């Protein structure tokens, strides 16, 4: 446990040092990278010790400001959720050093808040009581808010930060209610003393809905995801990577910790997760297809991946309630591995998008193109990450989706009607989402990095600093490495993780899961090696006389123009037309009815249907309802003093009257 405290202290101190290191150009980022790396290594040692030696750590610390003790406790869940954070934090800092190098502003405070964000997320995962949890939650929110405001001259960035702030506090409010209720029932803020026994299933369900709103807002659960596609793109790219890769997972972590272990309404929750996850996933990926800004696409895709994780968790809970432990184990392990894998490839994707912003100063899909030749490292890494997120073998995304799909296929073997219903939702839903993800990522990877540029003049491209390149290469290797390591991760951690989710699975079953993963890995790795060897032979032996100095043939079209290439909006149009009911796009234009040409406009607006139809109306209504209260706030000091006096008097009367 001391190791963990050291890690936190190192990271926070690193943040302070970089904020104090003045105008020096190098020191702040060196402090940030060093402290994050050091902290991450300590966390890795801790996690490894936990899983290998099956040690649990706990510690109570009295902080003089708080009335009760602050409890840190590391169990398998906290240890597992810390891994993505420990991977992304140092690599993100390395990337950020390069990324911020061309901004003229000082980066001291940026690094301070970056380290604060990392430290608060780590301590959130190990919080053993509600007080520490909420404190970390708030620190995380504030740090992320400040980081989002990095480009505070842009009004879009300010708006996004505000939306994030409002959404986060709304979610914190619900969490306060949730924790307060549980604490008042048990008389302690310690998580171990919380329990739902003795509550009617209706009040348990209400508690669940409270925490679903609270945690779900962070996790991007439909329809509470609306802040996410605004805020994640506004932050600097390495911060977006951390927000999408790790911060979303804090919401999932909360729901997993409090609701996935058995309760009286587990079946109901399972259905809510499964169907809600499907809706989140489909809705988000369709919206991602409509976006024309690369980081926004990535943010929506994070919502979609959270949806997949929720679907898997829901299927696992249902299977557990229906006494199908093997199916449940597959689904739970798949969900947890997806938490890890998503952090890796989404971090890489955001860094790739950051490279675009760095090199060309724009993320607009319809203006980019042909960048593979200009920034090859970023392009290649982005293609690898796109393959990983589209769940293509041999990369890590495939492993987790393979487990989730297997859960669905296994459940159908012994199916009753509700089981079959679950399998159909899980499998057909995942397959449809998977297909749409392939459209989405061939669209952004292909149209940004391949072909020729789509703007009229060839844009200037800035070379990437080494730090950015290396951080992307490391994460790309992680995409393959996490897949290869998956059998080992399963055999090391699955047993204690599953027992934490009230599923005691036979060790032999888990063995067979990791052997299955080994087979899959062997197969896809040999495919990779075959392609490599085959390609090398072709290149060395059979490439004599090949020419690569010709224009694109294009059916013999004589004068191809760059602007004739297929564009991002045309690429996704067929799919968007089919799903036009989701209202991802609004096209405004009136048909020309006259016989002769007249001027006409076409306006395509990208908007989030959930924001427009679900979130905004009640907020507007609340706004109208509360409008009269503004009369109380008028700026006249003497009336404010009168308010104070009235309040004090009222309190006095209440107190006296009571006694």
């Amino acid at each position, binding site marked *: 446990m001391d190791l963990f405290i050291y890690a936190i202290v190192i990271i926070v101190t690193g943040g302070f040092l970089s904020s104090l290191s003045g105008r020096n150009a190098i020191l702040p980022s060196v402090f940030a990278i060093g402290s994050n790396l050091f902290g991450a290594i300590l966390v890795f040692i801790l996690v490894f010790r936990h899983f290998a030696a099956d040690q649990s750590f706990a510690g109570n610390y009295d902080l003089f400001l708080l009335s009760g003790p602050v409890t840190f406790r590391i169990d398998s869940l906290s240890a597992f959720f810390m891994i993505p954070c420990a991977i992304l934090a140092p690599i993100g800092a390395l990337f950020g050093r390069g990324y911020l190098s061309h901004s003229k502003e000082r980066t001291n405070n940026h690094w301070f808040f970056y380290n604060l964000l990392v430290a608060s997320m780590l301590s959130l995962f190990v919080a053993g009581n509600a007080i520490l949890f909420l404190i970390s939650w708030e620190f995380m929110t504030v740090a992320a808010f400040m980081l989002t405001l990095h480009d505070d001259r842009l009004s879009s960035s300010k708006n996004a930060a505000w939306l994030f702030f409002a959404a986060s506090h709304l979610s914190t409010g619900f969490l306060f209610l949730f924790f307060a209720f549980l604490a008042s029932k048990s008389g302690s803020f310690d998580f171990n003393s919380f329990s739902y026994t003795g509550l009617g299933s209706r009040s348990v369900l209400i508690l669940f809905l409270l925490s679903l709103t609270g945690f779900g807002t962070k996790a991007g659960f439909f329809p509470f995801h609306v802040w996410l596609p605004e805020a994640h793109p506004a932050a600097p790219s390495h911060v977006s990577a951390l927000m999408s890769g790790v911060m979303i997972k804090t919401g999932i972590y909360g729901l997993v910790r409090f609701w996935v272990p058995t309760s009286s309404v587990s079946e109901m929750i399972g259905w809510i997760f499964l169907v809600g996850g499907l809706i989140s996933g489909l809705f988000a990926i369709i919206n991602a297809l409509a976006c024309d800004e690369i980081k926004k696409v990535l943010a929506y895709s994070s919502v979609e991946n959270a949806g997949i994780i929720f679907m898997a968790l829901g299927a696992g809970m249902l299977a557990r309630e229906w006494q199908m432990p093997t199916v449940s184990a597959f689904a739970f392990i798949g969900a947890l591995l997806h938490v890890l894998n998503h952090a890796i490839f989404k971090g890489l994707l955001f860094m790739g998008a950051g490279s675009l912003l760095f090199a060309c100063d724009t993320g607009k899909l319809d203006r980019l193109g042909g960048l593979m030749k200009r920034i090859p490292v970023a392009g290649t890494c982005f293609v690898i990450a796109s393959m990983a997120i589209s769940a293509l073998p041999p990369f890590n995304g495939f492993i987790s989706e393979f487990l989730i799909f297997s859960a669905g*296929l296994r459940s159908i073997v012994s199916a009753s009607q509700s089981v079959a219903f679950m399998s159909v939702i899980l499998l057909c839903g995942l397959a449809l989402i998977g297909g749409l993800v392939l459209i989405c990522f061939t669209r952004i990877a292909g149209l940004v990095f391949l072909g020729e540029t789509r703007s009229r003049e060839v844009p200037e491209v800035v070379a990437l600093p080494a730090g950015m390149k290396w951080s992307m290469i490391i994460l790309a290797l992680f995409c393959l490495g996490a897949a290869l390591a998956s059998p080992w991760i399963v055999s090391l951690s699955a047993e204690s993780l599953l027992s934490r989710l009230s599923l005691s699975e036979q060790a032999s079953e888990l063995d067979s899961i990791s052997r299955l993963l080994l087979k899959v890995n062997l197969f896809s790795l040999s495919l990779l090696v075959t*392609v490599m060897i085959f390609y090398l032979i072709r290149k060395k032996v059979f490439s004599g006389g*090949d020419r*690569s100095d010709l224009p694109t043939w294009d*059916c013999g079209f004589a004068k191809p123009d760059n602007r004739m290439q*297929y564009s991002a909006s045309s690429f996704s149009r067929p799919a968007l037309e089919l799903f036009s009911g989701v209202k991802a796009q609004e096209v405004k234009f009136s048909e020309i009815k006259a016989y002769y040409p007249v001027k006409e406009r076409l306006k395509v607006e990208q908007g989030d249907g959930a924001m427009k139809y679900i979130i905004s109306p009640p907020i507007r209504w609340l706004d109208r309802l509360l409008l009269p209260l503004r009369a109380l706030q008028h700026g006249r000091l003497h009336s404010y003093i009168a308010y104070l006096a009235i309040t004090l008097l009222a309190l006095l009367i209440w107190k006296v009257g009571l006694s």
Partner: protein
Amino acid sequence: MKNMIFMLFVLLLAPIMPGIINKVKAFFAGKKGLPVMQLYFDIFRLLRKKSNYSKTTTWLTRIAPHSVFAATVFLCLLIPFAGKESVVSFNADFILAVYLLALVRFFLIMAAIDAGSSFEGMGASREAFYGALAEPAFFSGLLALIFATGNLGFSDVFNGVTPSLWLQYPAPLALVVCCWFIVLLVENSRIPFDDPNTHLELTMIHEVMILDYSGKDLAMLEYSAALKLTVFASLLVNLLLPWQFASSLMAAAVFTFGLLLLAVVIGVIESTFARLRLIQIPKVLLGSGALGIIALVIMLSGK
């Protein structure tokens, strides 16, 4: 060993399938038509030629034919052919097979976009879209089959499809056959979804995506397309001809007969159907997904 030989046999046989389809189409059109072995000649001719690349293209265009070819051959390792056993099999190998197909699609799409032309971009966009809809349809048929046989791998499932299973669930299995047949037609860009003879604007999907390939690369892509068609046809043949044979020669003969017959059926459909309007295709695909689910529902309610 036996399964390996069956697989090699299919690898050799694959280019004949498009040949038969074209022969049938020529017969309907009252023409003599190309020789059945035409694709073999084409591939050998192309293999002797050199490849040209546009200067727009990157490493993706160069590596794509190799990946497509290798992934399709690796896919064959998972698919049961004449002996109803595949070379490699494990639990839930379907998923790996589906994602190998997705890998093939990924590289084809990326290579098509790489050429930087609107023709190929359009083909890529449609391929991606129809692929996204075909995947759930394939899974819905698969779910019904897994439920009917209670098995979790290609080999086990097709060993489980016996004549008695057909007698037990005639309607659901027929629905699965319909569902997968539609998936076959769309995944292999056949009429009524795409016209493989043209790469003109109205029909361009697969043919237009490989427009800028030449020489050895084109040979690999043409071969992989034929092989993919054969793989899908093999799945259907294994469903439709459920008998087991003691002698492998007999099994191979019946299997080959089934494959060739299926090629004739595809040819007849191509000759007698018009290509669908593009707007109609998603409806047909979603409908085919529904067929698999209906099959499942019928079996569940009969339980």
